[in-house]
């Protein structure tokens, strides 16, 4: 019976802690057991993923890690051959780099116009990605200090434009 009382007491203490946590505006986090478990994060042989991905349908099938490396190499090769400096080459999606790799293997003569168009395509892709990231951030950061700061900056920006118009 005493044991049951001890358990009940502990349960009430837990309820008290829950109330305090909710009252203090704590955000729910993800519970992760670390002690005794395998190390989190990247692996020396498997890179950022931290595991040998045998198959991942989201990443496009079997062994996506190795395929990605290949396309990165292909893209590097392309920028070297076209002689155009393309800092974003390694970050670009596989689709565009594969296209470039295809052109290289066919050893077609790349005109400056085509190279410029390719670079513009890469920039457009990058901007699209950035826009998607912004939308995601906007969705998840509602109410956060950084988001409030962003809104204030927007207000200040429109004030500046209004001031400029007044001056004209």
């Amino acid at each position, binding site marked *: 019976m005493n044991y049951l009382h001890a358990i009940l007491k502990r349960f009430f203490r837990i309820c008290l802690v829950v109330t305090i946590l909710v009252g203090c505006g704590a955000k729910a986090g993800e519970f992760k057991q670390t*002690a005794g478990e395998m190390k989190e994060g990247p692996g020396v042989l498997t890179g950022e993923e931290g595991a040998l991905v045998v198959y991942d349908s989201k990443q496009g099938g079997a062994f996506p890690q190795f395929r990605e490396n290949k396309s990165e190499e292909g893209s590097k090769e392309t920028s070297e051959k076209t002689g155009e400096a393309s800092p974003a080459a390694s970050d670009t999606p596989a689709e565009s780099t594969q296209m470039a790799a295809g052109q290289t293997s066919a050893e077609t003569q790349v005109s400056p116009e085509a190279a410029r168009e390719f670079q513009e395509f890469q920039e457009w892709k990058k901007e699209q990605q950035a826009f998607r990231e912004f939308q995601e951030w906007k969705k998840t950061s509602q109410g*956060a200090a950084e988001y409030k700061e962003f809104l204030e900056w927007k207000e200040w920006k429109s004030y500046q434009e209004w001031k400029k118009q007044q001056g004209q």
Partner: protein
Amino acid sequence: MKKFSQLGIFGLTMAITILLILPSAQAVDFKISGQINRAVLWGDNGNDDDVKFVDNDNSSTRFRFTGENEFNENWNVGINWEVQMESNSSADEEIDIGEDNDVGGTSFTERKIEFYVKHKSLGKLSLGQGDTATNGTAEVDLSGTDVVNYSSIVDMDGGFSFRTGDDAVVAFVGDVYSNYDGLSRRDRIRYDTPTFFGFYGSTSYMNGQTYDFALRSAHEWENFGKLAAAFGYVPGNNQRDEYRQIDGSISFLHNSGLNLTFSHGRRDFDVRDSNDGKNYYGKLGYKFGKWALSVDYTYSENIDQDGDEAKSIGAAAVWNIWDSVQFYGSYRWHDLDRDNVSDIENLSAVMIGGRVKF
């Protein structure tokens, strides 16, 4: 061993085949990962000292296969197969100071062999060998030094023994301390609720008509820090576990890197009418850059025998030199008081090693 390998290859082939031929799923993945965790362990039992080359039992050498199939927005089914292989486990009594041989018969040992079915709003049901609901409830630790020091202090040097001044063995470190961390890993069925405001509950039922309950939580404050906690209860007193047990742990990590961890466990031996076993553990740590440092204190009572009092002080440093590699060092001092045995020597140990994820 041969049988194990054959079974392993068969199981792996089946898993890959099943995962690859399921085109109706929204997302399928299958991954292999692992780690190697090796260390040099020095110990001094008051009469003699020795150096050992060990597998760090705090987080043993292992590898695993994981896979998941997302059938639709709500339903996921996955597998988890994790095995460890420790050559000279730091907690094995065969590596005691003065023993010259390595631990024999190194083989794979099971950790997790389970599948699970998960629903977004109904929770997760797991079947197989794996964590019981209460496993890990006394081991919540945000210090970043748990690879070498956490509430289960026997993982570092549990294979060393306390000796009298005459060099007679009194008890092994692994027997006189316990964090009473739930029911470890067993063959069981387990249910986890979905997470509500950072809290979730679990229960499991296993062989021997035994079962357990647990509650876990994780919360964070943007400009303050993170808090994680767990509580476990084993009603016990059944065919398999002749005791009742409660345990819990809580860990707080401030944004500055300063962190505090507490763990407590208590085992009530109704059946065999001996005193309650108790364990208290506290840790103070600091994380900065690629480093994590900590000091801890443990007090255990009546774990091996009635009247036992064991204390331990530890200090640890972990250097996360690269994301996939960490090096660590730890010092631990032990003291045991036992009724009717005087002249028990203190024990010291130092562990230096590294963990590499591959």
